[in-house]
């Protein structure tokens, strides 16, 4: 008797498990879809995916939400770069002038462009597009200030431009 009940229970659990698996699979398809569809329309699909998937909010975000996640990434990268710039004052004091310019430019990215992008994405996205494009410009201009090969932040500049390109593409979907 004991074994029969256990067997029935086991079968019931199997069925429930199967259903859960099927539902999870369907959810997986749906969840992956918005992020996937969005990233396909950007110039760097895999970068877009890795940026968005690294943030748990992406699974339930709309296009505005995805844009805001990326603006957060721009802010984080900008802040990290400011840190690198600060360190470079000590390790490469002869680069003070271009470092000063970069300080100004990255402060613009983190304090001005990010702020404008956040409020504009929610209401009037073309101004967010302008701010994001500007972030890329500020990063490039900062990089261009160093004598060739002497920039301590080249990789970060490249990353900023790539993230801005992807973010801009997503913001343009809101126009």
């Amino acid at each position: 008797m004991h074994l029969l009940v256990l067997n029935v229970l086991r079968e019931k659990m199997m069925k429930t498990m199967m259903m859960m698996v099927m539902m999870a699979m369907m959810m997986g398809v749906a969840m992956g879809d918005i992020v996937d569809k969005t990233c396909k329309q950007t110039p760097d699909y895999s970068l877009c995916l890795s940026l968005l998937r690294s943030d748990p909010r992406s699974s339930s975000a709309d296009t505005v939400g995805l844009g805001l996640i990326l603006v957060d990434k721009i802010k984080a990268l900008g802040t990290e770069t400011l840190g690198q710039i600060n360190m470079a004052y000590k390790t490469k004091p002869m680069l003070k002038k271009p470092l000063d310019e970069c300080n100004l430019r990255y402060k613009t990215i983190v304090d001005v462009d990010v702020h404008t992008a956040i409020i504009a994405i929610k209401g009037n996205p073309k101004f967010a597009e302008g701010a994001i494009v500007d972030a890329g410009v500020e990063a490039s201009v900062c990089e261009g200030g160093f004598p060739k090969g002497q920039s301590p932040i080249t990789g970060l500049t490249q990353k900023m431009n790539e993230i801005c390109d992807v973010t801009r593409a997503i913001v343009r979907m809101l126009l």
Partner: protein
Amino acid sequence: MASSDALLPISAREEDPLVSDGSRSDPNAETHRRKRPVKGLLAVSFGLLFIAFYVVLIATHHGSSRSNDVKIESDETATTTSRARLAGVSEKSNDQLWKLSGERNTVSFAWNNSVLSWQRTAFHFQPEQNWMNDPNGPLFYKGWYHFFYQYNPNAAVWGDIVWGHAVSKDLIHWVHLPIAMVADQWYDANGVWTGSATFLDDGSLVMLYTGSTDKSVQVQNLAYPEDLNDPLLLKWVKYSGNPVLVPPPGILPKDFRDPTTAWKTSDGKWRITIGSKINKTGISLVYDTIDFKTYEKHDTLLHKVPNTGMWECVDFYPVSKTAVNGLDTSVNGPNVKHIVKASMDDTRFDHYAVGTYFDSNGTWIPDDPTIDVGMSASLRYDYGKFYASKTFYDQNKGRRILWSWIGESDSEAADVQKGWSSLQGIPRTVVLDTKTGKNLIQWPVEEIKSLRLSSKQFDMEVGPGSVVPVDVDSAAQLDIEAEFEIKKESLDKILGDSSVVAEAEEFSCQKSGGASVRGALGPFGFSVLADKSLSEQTPVYFYLAKGKDSKLKTFFCTDTSRSTFANDVVKPIYGSAVPVLKGEKLTMRILVDHSIVEGFAQGGRTCITSRVYPTKAIYGAAKLFVFNNAIDATVTASFKVWQMNSAFIHPYSEEAVRALSST
């Protein structure tokens, strides 16, 4: 359940293959064996789940999988490649506006206050500081021209938008007034956005404007002057029943903004139109009202054009087919055409088309559907930096006047450092070109002539490949009117020479490479804001291209690519073809005012506004040149250059108002 064991990763198996003696016999073996199937089932489910995820991922990913490796070299190609990739993002994105100049400057230019403060204009409308964008509710009332505008009182970037306000007697000399409307209601908490004024039959006026609500929904609101006896219209009241319009079914909450001035229908109702979009089709919705408080929405649209995206700042107005005066917005009749204009959100271009309005059902059709509103070939008020424009009927002088937001082309860092951003163009009269019947003609308002100080007249022949300095004292505030003619001998020779290739069909200012590229019949014109050595310069010029049928096609361009050494500035080459009718000389007018240059060809048939930020060609070092870069043709130039006074735009004070009142 034995098969499920096979799916388990080896570490999960409880049997240790190395130990085969009985010491492993487990008193709990029975329970373990019974637990394993359940554990097995769980493991199977998770395994399947992961597989499902990967399958979904792989099956739907057929885009290019770009390597995530960060490129280490820092050189010009890295930045220009990333800029070039933007071109593939959206066919409508106007990357021209945002690409950094291709030339790599060896030295990064750091803005300093002297160079930045030179950029402020002397006679263009701008607030004392901070950010401005769209013109709002322009009108003439009790002797004053009123101008309202999107304004950020807190920063030199967009945000915290309220309605700035200023008044003038002549559209040129302004006094700034206190802010007219702030974001103090739930229905405009996130922005008091663009709107238009309508005069009622009794001479009073109402304002309809878009509010971005506390939930960022776009709604239309009604406001009116608190005191109609105050000619300065300082205070405004918002209707207690706002909003009067919310996004209708089928229209998204963020695609419903910028209501127009209302016009009277033959029924005696008021009618307005509001731009929007459905998917990628730009549309304009139509509403009728009697009291501006309740509205009937039409089922039909005023007009729509596929693939043009969101229509912002729609404008709709009549123009006379025969006369040169402006018309009140409600005028209709057989001698009238109607203009539909929209600002394209996707491209930041203002487009318009000439057409016919049907009052019975509130619809409009273009005269030429191949250049319908928003299509890439459709007409633009201005081929440079010029957006969110709005007209109003000036009942004072019987004119229709056009305002437009002229944004910056520099970086936000520079804007923040200099403390301001954006200008308005010089107000222009707008009429239908009665000679062609197909386009509008715009011209700076007559009142700007009151700023003209001393002038000099020049008449000269400019040979091929020459650049001639024009001896005027200072060159940052100028009004230039010029006439050019290619010498008949040159023209005949070139038109008759079959070896001169026909290029009119392919030529465009944007792709031409600029004023330094020499052709048979151009470029020739003026180089403004140039330093002595022409290391910085902004050419404004004509380029005549030979067509296949040996006819000539004339282009009017402004080349900002060498306007500055600064590398955080956008430096496009702007321009378009301009109709030149038989017997017409080539005429050009240029207004130079520090960081803005406005060019008008053939009396205003083609206009170009540009923003320039020279680092050397400033203050006393700014010069003017006339040039002819054609290979063979000689050009005669006859022109007058005026020094322009400042408009002395004042902050608000009783004295300032009194001073303006007495003029």
